[in-house]
Structure formats: structure tokens, C-alpha cells
């Protein structure tokens, strides 16, 4: 294991700063009273409080999942603050946003203000739990697109939220989804009406700023018949030596011929090299291809978090619907990732593609876990899965747990897997051609992740390669 690779993968976390903003945080602890308090603070209708309480009662009866290949001390859910909001929080224009906050996003390289315009990106920013500002709302409204925080949507479009929230991930779906349903404080809502192609990439940035606060955001995206949207999500968090819980729920609904592309670059603080601190990222993401010929595509680049537990999935109900999952997961030091997808084929001639690339360095553990399920009525269903692992160094682990359940004899399911290693001999080969270790590792990892990076929108692809400590040759892609 050469020192050069060590240095490359051990680059310090640059998003690990705390923003000094006065925030309003409720006392730690979870009870029905906490939930009522959150609901009251957010001026929610009764049905939503009922939704939360129903979820909470489910959650009380549930057990934390033990099956993931990750290890951590038991979480004390009473030692978490479930609501934290920067003050003041009523903002009408960008000028009203706390300049400190804007500087935070500048440091993060979030494209807001003019930069957002240039990049053609509409950004909904979630800081701790409250959506701070949504840019481009008006422009999107012209074509009938609703893009706002979920809190605003609850106030302004309650019928849509009520109709779709919980329709993909029910309140009692799993332990963390139930917790999220009980205590979620904000998130993004996006509605693309029938026949509308969203004219720009929509983007949300999440950031956890307060120590001992959990972040439970809830995202809901609905694309009506023939609508298309591409949605980007970025995540960072400051360095704390305590662990912070992030339990999000993302629900996507695609009606007939709709197309949703959801891309994530996740760079939550991963803890230090001894595994102290870092985010527990326990996230439920699921898309419902409800309509015929609909398509949902997940692309994720997971580089942060102490623990990642995440399976962006597609439920393919509509005939000829398509589910895709493209993933790069990089773990280093003591990070643990158990991530993958579920492709549930229910409709006829449904198709799914899974491309997973795991990179493990240091003492980290990286697991791919994926389910491909072909139901009895899914005539002519087709799945292709490719799971590749790359090991850097001697002490990291890569694991693959594919689950395949086929109940229809006309289905075709393929699974390919490989494991490779960046070794001394590869680096020497590059060196003997004049190419230094940094560029060599960059090129090797870039080549390894190529199939996934190609799926990312341009600016995210750039960020992703940067995040992996890579330098991209200008025109090489």
C-alpha cells in the first residue's frame, strides 16, 4: 500500500465548518408531545398530525434493523433534538437570507444567486430542518411546476401532499421511515404537471449544522403523465465528534410516460480516521413507476457518512416501465456502507438496470445489497445487474449481497460481479509512462466509475469526480 494512495484517499474533509447562526432548537427527546409541538410550530392540518402520530405508534412497536452489514452503538433516540431552525425564518427574497448562511453555501460551492442563474439550477436549500429559500419558484410556476419546501406545500397544496405522501413509503414501512414520518421537519416538494418537461435541473442542498440534531427531511416528487424532471440532491455536514442521525424519506411518483431522474452526491461528514463522529445516514428512497412506460432513474455518489444504509428502489407497476440504479459508493477509514437497490417488477415487460461501483479504502467496509424481484404477472420482465468492487489497501472490505426472486418463467435476469484492486504494479505501470500516482489513481477510479458518472448531470459529474479526489482531464470523459 503506497503512501501516495493513502494521501489521496485521506484528504481532509473541507465542508466541516460550523455556521454561527442563531437557531431555534427544541429540547431533546421524542414523544407524542414532541410531535405535536413540531406540528403546531409548522401550523399543520389535522390530517398531517394524524399521519405523524400513526407513524410514531408504528415506530414504537418496531425494531431497529439488524440485518445490514454495519456496526454501531445503539442510538439513544431520546438524546436527539428533533427540530432545529435558523432564526428568523420567514424569507421572501434572497436578500433576507442570513449572509452567514449564504457564505456557508458559498464555501460549499452551492450555486445560488447569480451563480444559480448561470448554472440554470433552481435550488431548494435545507439547513438543519427548515427550507431556507427556494430560487426560481416563479419561473417554474409559469409552466405550472410547483417546487417548494414540503412545509409550504402542506400549506399551499395540501390536496397534492395528502394524496401522494406515504403512497410510496407508507408510515410503517421500516424503522427509520416510520421515525421520519413521525418527526420530519422539512424537505422538498416538486410537482410536474401533465405533459410538462421541467426546463431546468432542480436541486436541493441539505446541510446539518447543529450538534446533536437529527435531520429528517422528506422529499416528494410527482411527475404526471408525460412529465419529465431531473432532480439533484447534495449533502454536507460540519465536523462534530458526536454522531448525528440523518433519516430521510424520498418518494417519487411517475405516472404514464413520466420520467424522473434523481441524482445524489452525498458528502456528509464521515467521522475522523478512527471512526469518531460522522453522520448515520439511514435513508429510505423509493420510486413508484405507477404509469405505463414511466421511468425512474436513481444515480448516487456516496462518499460521506460514518454509516450509510440506503437502498433507492423502484416499484415497477406500469407495463413497460423502467427502473435504473447507478451508484458509486466510496468508503475510507472506518466508514461503513450497506447500500444498493430494490427493483420490484410487477407490470409486464418492465425493465431494470443496476450498476453499482463500490470503492473501499482504509479499514472501511463497503457492501452492495440488492433485490431483484420479478412478480408472477411480470411477463417478459428483464433485469441486468452489474456490481463491481475496488479495494485500495490491505484492510478494507467489499461485500456483495444480491437477492434474486423470480416468479415468472418468461423473465430474464442477469447478474455480473467483479472485484479488483489498485495495486503497486498498476501504479508502477503508470509511473513508467510518466504519470504520477495522483493522476494514475484518478484515472483508474474514474475509469472504474465511468458508467455511473456518465449518468450524472454535468455539474454534478464534476463535483463527484472532485469529491473522489480526482482530477479530470479536460476533454476525457
Amino acid at each position, binding site marked *: 500500500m503506497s503512501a501516495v494512495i493513502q494521501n489521496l484517499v485521506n484528504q481532509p474533509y473541507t465542508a466541516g465548518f460550523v455556521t454561527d447562526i442563531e437557531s431555534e432548537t427544541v429540547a431533546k427527546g421524542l414523544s407524542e408531545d414532541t410531535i405535536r409541538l413540531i406540528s403546531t410550530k409548522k401550523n399543520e392540518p389535522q390530517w398531517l398530525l394524524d399521519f405523524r402520530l400513526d407513524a410514531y405508534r408504528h415506530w414504537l412497536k418496531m425494531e431497529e434493523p439488524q440485518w445490514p452489514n454495519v456496526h454501531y452503538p445503539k442510538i439513544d433516540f431520546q438524546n436527539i433534538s428533533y427540530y432545529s431552525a435558523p432564526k428568523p425564518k420567514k424569507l421572501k427574497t434572497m436578500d433576507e437570507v442570513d449572509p452567514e448562511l449564504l457564505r456557508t453555501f458559498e464555501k460549499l460551492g452551492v450555486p445560488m444567486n447569480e451563480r444559480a442563474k448561470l448554472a440554470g439550477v433552481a435550488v431548494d436549500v435545507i439547513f438543519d430542518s427548515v427550507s431556507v429559500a427556494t430560487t426560481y419558484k416563479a419561473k417554474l410556476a409559469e409552466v405550472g411546476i410547483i417546487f417548494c419546501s414540503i412545509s409550504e406545500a402542506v400549506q399551499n397544496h395540501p390536496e397534492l401532499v395528502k394524496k401522494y405522501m406515504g403512497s410510496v413509503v407508507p408510515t410503517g414501512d421500516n424503522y427509520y421511515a416510520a421515525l421520519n414520518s413521525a418527526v420530519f421537519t422539512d424537505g422538498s416538494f416538486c410537482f410536474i404537471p401533465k405533459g410538462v418537461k421541467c426546463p431546468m435541473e432542480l436541486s436541493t442542498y441539505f446541510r446539518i449544522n447543529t450538534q446533536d440534531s437529527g435531520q429528517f427531511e422528506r422529499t416528494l416528487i410527482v411527475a404526471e403523465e408525460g412529465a419529465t424532471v431531473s432532480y439533484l440532491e447534495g449533502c454536507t455536514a460540519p465536523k462534530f465528534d458526536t454522531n448525528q442521525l440523518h433519516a430521510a424519506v424520498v418518494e417519487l411518483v411517475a405516472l404514464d410516460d413520466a420520467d424522473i431522474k434523481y441524482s445524489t452526491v452525498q458528502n456528509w461528514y464521515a467521522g475522523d480516521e478512527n471512526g469518531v463522529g460522522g453522520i448515520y445516514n439511514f435513508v429510505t428512497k423509493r420510486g413508484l413507476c405507477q404509469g405505463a412506460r414511466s421511468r425512474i432513474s436513481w444515480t448516487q455518489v456516496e462518499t460521506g457518512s460514518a454509516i450509510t444504509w440506503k437502498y433507492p428502489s423502484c416499484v415497477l407497476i406500469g407495463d413497460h416501465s423502467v427502473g435504473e440504479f447507478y451508484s458509486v459508493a466510496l468508503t475510507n477509514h472506518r466508514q461503513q456502507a450497506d447500500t444498493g437497490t430494490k427493483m420490484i417488477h410487477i407490470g409486464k415487460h418492465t425493465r431494470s438496470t443496476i450498476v453499482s461501483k463500490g470503492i473501499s479504502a482504509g479499514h472501511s467496509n463497503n457492501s452492495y445489497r440488492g433485490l431483484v424481484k420479478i412478480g408472477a404477472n411480470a411477463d417478459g420482465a428483464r433485469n441486468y445487474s452489474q456490481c463491481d468492487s475496488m479495494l485500495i489497501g490491505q484492510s478494507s472490505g467489499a461485500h456483495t449481497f444480491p437477492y434474486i426472486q423470480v416468479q415468472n418463467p418468461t423473465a430474464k435476469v442477469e447478474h455480473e460481479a467483479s472485484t479488483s484492486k489498485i495495486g503497486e504494479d498498476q501504479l508502477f505501470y503508470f509511473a*513508467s509512462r*510518466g504519470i504520477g500516482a495522483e*493522476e494514475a489513481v484518478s*484515472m*483508474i477510479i*474514474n475509469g472504474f466509475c465511468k458508467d455511473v458518472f456518465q449518468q450524472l448531470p454535468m455539474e454534478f459529474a464534476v463535483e463527484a469526480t472532485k469529491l473522489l479526489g480526482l482530477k479530470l482531464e479536460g476533454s476525457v470523459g
Partner: protein
Amino acid sequence: MILQDAKTLLEVKGLHASVNGREILKGLDLTVRAGEVHAIMGPNGSGKSTFAKLLAGHPAYELIAGTVQFEGSDLFALTPDARAKAGLFLGFQYPVEIPGVANSQFLRLAYNTVMAGRGKDELDPLEFDDLVRERMKLLEMNPNFLDRSVNEGFSGGEKKRNEILQMALLEPTVALLDETDSGLDIDALRIVAQGVNSLLNKDNAVVLVTHYQRLLNYIVPDYVHVMEGGRIVKTGDRSLALELESRGYDWIVGAGADKAVTA
């Protein structure tokens, strides 16, 4: 060709080196001048490949003693990538596979890095494409090879042609070709040898490390060195290689014959 007053490119003196704590090179001396072709022959385990890899800077090979001057400067003061930029080239016996990295991309990065290191112009992808396709003709290579991942799924012959293609692109001053003939059929051997010959000129030099003399039918050496026990124990001209072919190595090795003779 042996030239009068040719510049010394490589001067190896008293080289001792080890791998995994075992001493393999035990006092190797060699002088290579511009325009020359040297062949280093010898039985398995005599240290031929160790010598090539040590010079190129493989991290597993450790220098114990001795010096190597490359165009008058200390070679071991340079990192492996700096040696490549300075004009040293190693053609690998077993080139590694690099999945996912297109050959065109790799070759261009290598070319531009090395040329930038020599203060020469880098090429954009289109310019480079013209250059690489022209050099590929030299080695009768299929253009689709540019789109394939570096050495991945290449036959033995394709890998070796790729090595010589890299030599053709990087235009080294001294090329060490480690068992370039191994794994080649007779047609591939001829093509690879023609490629090497076409690159030879009065300002550069080639050191062929080989087990068999068959390569030397195509690339005619000015000097043939026999290595044994980590040293060069006999040096001759082309006829020495032919003699080795008919008589084997035992007569030199067994006889303990001539002591370290350098060219």
C-alpha cells in the same frame, strides 16, 4: 550501430540490488552509448528483469549499492515518473490491465505528461488521434484497439505491440525491453521487431532483455551480454548469441569463464 565518439547514455557501475530482502544484482556494470543495441541474455533467475525494473523504479526493488548515470545525471535521484520524462522507457514483460481506462485516453495522458516534462507541446485529442493512428500503422494494429481498456483482454501479442506503440509515442532515449519476444508468434515477432528497428537512430539506444536469441535475428545487437548470478559474466557480439543458442548457458556459467566484462 557502434559510432565513434558517441555520447554515453547509460552508465551502470557496481550495481547491487535486492527484492524482498534477497540480493539479486551483485555488481553489475554496463555502459550504453547513443546508437547502440545491447542484448542482455542469461538463464532464468540471473537478474535480467530485476535490472530492468530497478532502473525504471519499481518500488519492490531496492538499491543496495552502485550508481546509474543517465545522460550524466543520477538516475536514482529521480522518481519513476521523472525517469520516464527524462527519456527512460521500460517495455514490460507482463503489462498490467487497467479496466475502464480507454487506451486512447491512457496513451494521450502518457504522451502529454512526458512531453510536458520535456518542455514540448501537448496535443489535443484530435491531434493526438492523428499521431497515434500513424504510429499504430507501424505496428499493424487494429484501430479499434484505441477504444478498448488498457491491455484488458489483449492477447500476448497485442500487449507487446501496445508496449512498442508506447515506445514509439514517448520517443525514449534509452528503451529497456524486458522479454518483449516472449509470447509472440513469428509474425507478431517480426512486426514488433520492425517497429523497434524503425525507432532506432543515432541518438537513442535499446537494451533488449531476452532469454532466447530468436529476437536477435530481427533486431541485430551491437553487444551481447550474458548475465549470471546478478552480474554480466561475458560480453561479445552477435555471434555470442548464436553460440549460446547452440551450446546453452552452461559452458559459460559452468566454466566460471570470463569475469565481468563490460562493453
